């Protein structure tokens, strides 16, 4: 039967629905959305109560109630049996109607006309009106029901939004937690690094004191190992401290004038021995305004350069390391652009993104060839960011790495007074590397040398006429120079000859007899060349043979002592250790215990040795290049030989590490740093008391 509504009522129905419809979904906030709807509905229908329950964790929970004070009273009063059994879509009844007594909640909202609307799958709505004269008609329920469908969709959107907001907040909390944890880690590292430095300083200072005393060569050798190891540890700790300070934004850069060229050259001087030892071609090309002084933190600038250089040298076994520096000044700023390239191991594309992460090491396997904590690049990145510079990295695994850095620092006033001049009027440059030759020509021009000849190294030979220049700058291996060096001297010319560090000693002995000859080491040191040229007239009068380069070789002997072959009845021991200091230390300890030992540097060599000779005891390091100690042990255990006792000597001393050693077939474990007593005890246990005592 169709319900008849008066025109006035129909208009009212329409306007009610219109108003209610427009107030739904006015906010993505769930409570705001419900509140807006509730206000309009309550005002429009003069309701006493509006309550909305939503399913949360599979149970209906009162989400919103108006008047609000009823919220607490109503939390557990919903007749859920009725809801699941009788409420299909909507239901309206008078509280006094006994037919619906099971639908009452027994609280203050059981008054007047009560109407429920089911919000499919998400909850339900209850409204009560003490002013309504009768329950809502089917038409009214249907009309409002369609609105409730819209409300339901809107609430679903709000809940989805809440869920997303919740997720975002959860993520934010997790990030904050991670940041907090990172800050704690930073504080912890800063503290522990500091606590470690204090006793370490004591060790280093004490060692230095002992080294300055009159002591035996053997003791000196040991003490030097202690000092070098301590210094290495100190550098690691300094790096950790620096990184933590960069991370925690407590790193303050100083602002003082410094010579950019001298800062570079100071770093180059420090590492060139390392390059020479590997027989690398180490070139430094400087272009532009070499006399410029910048305003900045020289110490940190050098730290940046040192980190880059040591990285390049560490990861390059053969070939070259080349540093090209371009200095330009404009608008009171010096633009320092430098590119450091090498022919080292490079890095694969997938690891590149993680390169600047603290503690990241491209090779973190047990067989890694290169030491270090993996802090260098992280510090480089931090320092460059602090200096507001940019760094770019081009690298290919197996082909090498190229790092380009751009920095802009203010020009210091000192630059005005820094320009060097020379009395030299003419010079001839005969250098094989065209870029190097160019940069030297630039320097000479800059210093006021107005006649500069530049000979192609490839075309100048022993039949070429002698150059007329006052100063000739060339390289040791050039045939022209080899043939004409004495003739050049007769003409009153000065020869500056560059030679790799590795052959410097050979040439310097020869040059001692020739005052016109100045032997300098590569890479070329521009400021020292400039200084030499500026004071040349005095130098010529004097007797200096190496005015441009004060480099001296401090050869450190790392040679093994020539131990005699062990006697046949003596136990045969083998040390497998890649770290030379540890190798020597262990050997000294064994010597002190009246044993001698063979030495190898990795697991592969250990297996080869063990297959050829019957060793009684092998002291096996675990983390080594080429083959690690565990693999070597397994191979030895699988070989048909007289099985040795194997003692692991490792810094990885967690229970899991020890267990892995035993699983591989290792008999005993000695943690690093070890004491003589520990080695003695392991040896006694391995050899047996008699054999040990007999030694």
């Amino acid at each position, binding site marked *: 039967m169709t319900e008849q509504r008066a025109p006035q009522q129909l208009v009212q129905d329409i306007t009610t629905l219109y108003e209610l419809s*427009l107030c739904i979904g006015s906010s993505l906030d769930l409570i705001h959305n419900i509140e807006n709807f509730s206000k309009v509905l309550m005002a*429009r*229908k003069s*309701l006493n109560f509006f309550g909305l329950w939503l399913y949360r964790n599979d149970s209906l929970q009162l989400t919103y109630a108006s*008047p*609000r*004070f009823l919220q607490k009273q109503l939390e557990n009063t919903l007749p859920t049996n009725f809801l699941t059994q009788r409420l299909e879509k909507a239901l309206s009844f008078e509280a006094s109607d006994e037919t619906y007594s099971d639908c009452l909640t027994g609280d*203050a909202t059981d008054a007047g006309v009560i109407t429920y609307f089911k919000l499919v799958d998400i909850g339900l709505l209850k409204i009560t*009106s003490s002013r309504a004269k009768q329950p809502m008609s089917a038409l009214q329920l249907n009309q409002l029901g369609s609105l409730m469908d819209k409300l339901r969709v809107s609430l679903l959107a709000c809940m989805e939004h809440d869920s997303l907001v919740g997720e975002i907040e959860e993520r934010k909390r997790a990030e904050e937690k991670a940041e907090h944890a990172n800050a704690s880690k930073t504080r912890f590292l800063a503290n522990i690094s500091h606590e470690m430095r204090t006793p370490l300083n004591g060790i280093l200072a004490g060692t230095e004191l002992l080294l300055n005393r009159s002591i035996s060569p053997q003791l000196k050798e040991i003490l030097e190992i202690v000092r070098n190891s301590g210094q290495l540890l100190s550098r690691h700790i300094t790096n950790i401290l620096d990184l933590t300070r960069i991370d925690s934004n407590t790193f303050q850069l100083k602002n003082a004038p410094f010579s950019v060229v001298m800062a570079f050259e100071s770093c180059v001087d420090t590492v060139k021995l390392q390059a020479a030892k590997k027989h690398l071609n180490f070139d430094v090309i400087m272009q532009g305004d070499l006399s410029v002084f910048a305003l900045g933190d020289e110490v940190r600038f050098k730290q940046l350069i040192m980190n880059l250089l040591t990285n390049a040298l560490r990861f390059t076994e053969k070939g070259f390391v080349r540093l090209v520096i371009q200095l330009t000044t404009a608008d009171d700023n010096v633009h320092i652009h430098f590119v450091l390239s090498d022919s080292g191991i490079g890095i694969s594309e997938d690891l590149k993104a993680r390169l600047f992460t603290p503690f990241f090491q491209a090779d973190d396997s047990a067989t890694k060839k290169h030491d270090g904590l993996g802090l260098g690049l992280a510090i480089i990145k931090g320092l460059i960011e602090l200096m507001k510079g940019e760094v770019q990295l081009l690298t290919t695994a197996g082909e090498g790495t190229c790092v380009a850095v751009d920095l802009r620092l203010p020009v210091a006033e000192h630059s005005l007074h820094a320009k060097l001049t020379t009395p030299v009027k003419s010079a001839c440059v005969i250098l094989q590397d065209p870029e190097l030759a160019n940069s030297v020509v630039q320097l000479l021009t800059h210093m006021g040398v107005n006649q500069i000849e530049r000979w192609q190294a490839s075309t100048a030979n022993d039949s070429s006429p002698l150059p007329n220049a006052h100063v000739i700058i060339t390289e040791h291996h050039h045939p022209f120079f080899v043939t004409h060096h004495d003739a050049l001297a007769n003409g009153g010319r000065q020869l500056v000859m560059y030679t790799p560090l590795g052959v410097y000693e050979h040439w310097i002995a020869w040059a001692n007899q020739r005052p016109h000859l100045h032997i300098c080491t590569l890479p070329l040191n521009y400021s020292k060349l400039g200084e030499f040229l500026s004071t040349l007239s005095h130098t010529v009068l004097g007797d200096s043979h190496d005015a441009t380069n004060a480099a001296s070789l401090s050869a450190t002997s790392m040679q093994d002592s020539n131990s005699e072959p062990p006697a046949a009845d003596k136990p045969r021991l083998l040390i497998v250790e890649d770290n030379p200091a540890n190798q020597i230390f262990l050997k000294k300890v064994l010597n002190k215990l009246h044993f001698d030992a063979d030495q190898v540097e990795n697991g592969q060599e250990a297996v080869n040795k063990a297959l050829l000779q019957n060793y009684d005891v092998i002291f096996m390091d675990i983390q080594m290049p080429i083959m690690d100690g565990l693999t070597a042990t397994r191979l030895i255990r699988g070989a048909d030989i007289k099985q040795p006792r194997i003692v692991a000597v490792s810094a990885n001393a967690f229970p899991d590490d020890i267990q892995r050693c035993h699983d591989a077939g290792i008999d005993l474990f000695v943690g690093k740093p070890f004491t003589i007593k520990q080695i003695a005890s392991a040896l006694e246990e391995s050899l047996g008391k008699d054999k040990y005592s007999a030694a």
Partner: protein
Amino acid sequence: MYLDTVSPAILLSSYKQLCSNGGNTLVMLLAENDPADPADLIAALNAHNVPFIGAVFPKLIFNDALYTHGMICFVVDAPVAPLLIEGLDSPDFTLPDLTLYLTEAASGCDLKQTTPGKCTTLLFVDALCGHIDLLLHRIYDELGSQVNYIGGGAGSIQLRPIPCILAAQGVLRNVAVLLLCKNASSLSAKHGWQQAYGPVVATEVENNTIKQLNWDNAITVYQQAITASGGGELDASNFMAGTRAFPFGISKEEEEVIVRDPIATADNAHIICVGAIPQNASLYILKGDEHSLIAAAQRAAEESLAGFPANRMPTQSLIIDCISRQLFLAEAFSREMSVVQSVLKDLPLEGALTLGEISSFGDGYLEFFNKTIVVGLLQ
């Protein structure tokens, strides 16, 4: 009680006299033009620890006459001190914890009693504070329909902001005072205005300002509606007078519409009303006459009297009638008072002409009315 002359001494003496019949808290309705300084009255009451609430209204009602000076005062039985709600010039005002207030007051009040005979909340608010609707919504949210509400908007007939609420803290602006008392009450609110045109939709509003009607210039649409309803042309000079007979009505299901009184224009397009207009509300343009308005007043009195518990007799009337209703009825207003008086028989009429009337619909939702008479009966 009507005091023709108001002074601290007279007030204290009257309070003593009123208390002899029961009650403890003084309720004061002070005429806007009375020469007494409200601050002196408050100081005297505070000095004698007299709990009170009060407000300044354009005119007072006593029996069937209107007064522009003097004071209506009576006492109610309030178990707790009055509550001051401050900062109503901002929507971010802080509402004191009314639930706690109710809990404290509940020791002496029968909150479970259903109509008729609920206890009563008296509420006076600065009519020009700007956020009355929000205030009422939040109060209802806290107290619900457990109590009856009656009160009105205080202030000057000139619609200029004045300190108009009397509280122990002083004579204040932008505040409201609320008092929960044990006195049982019955209420009825009627106006008698009839739908003449509409509905039109308030498509753009801001609180009590209608900016657009039917997506068009609000004044243009309103003018068309008045013309269609038999009214004349409006301009800035005759707006108040011209619109007096054509208020807006907010549609309400199965109830009289809620009247909104247009009082000014802004920017040649906007209409400012006494009381907020909901966004997207369906509005009617109303018109009325002496007969319909006075008949409504009579119905209000009858309904209120009928709503009072059968076994009790009201001892105090509180008539809250709108000043603009009186301005519209002019001399006929005295007939409105007469019909109410005739319904209430021997109970003296006491009340005020207000700038907006506050009442629940009987025991239902709390509303802010315009151009309406609220007949409240208290025991």
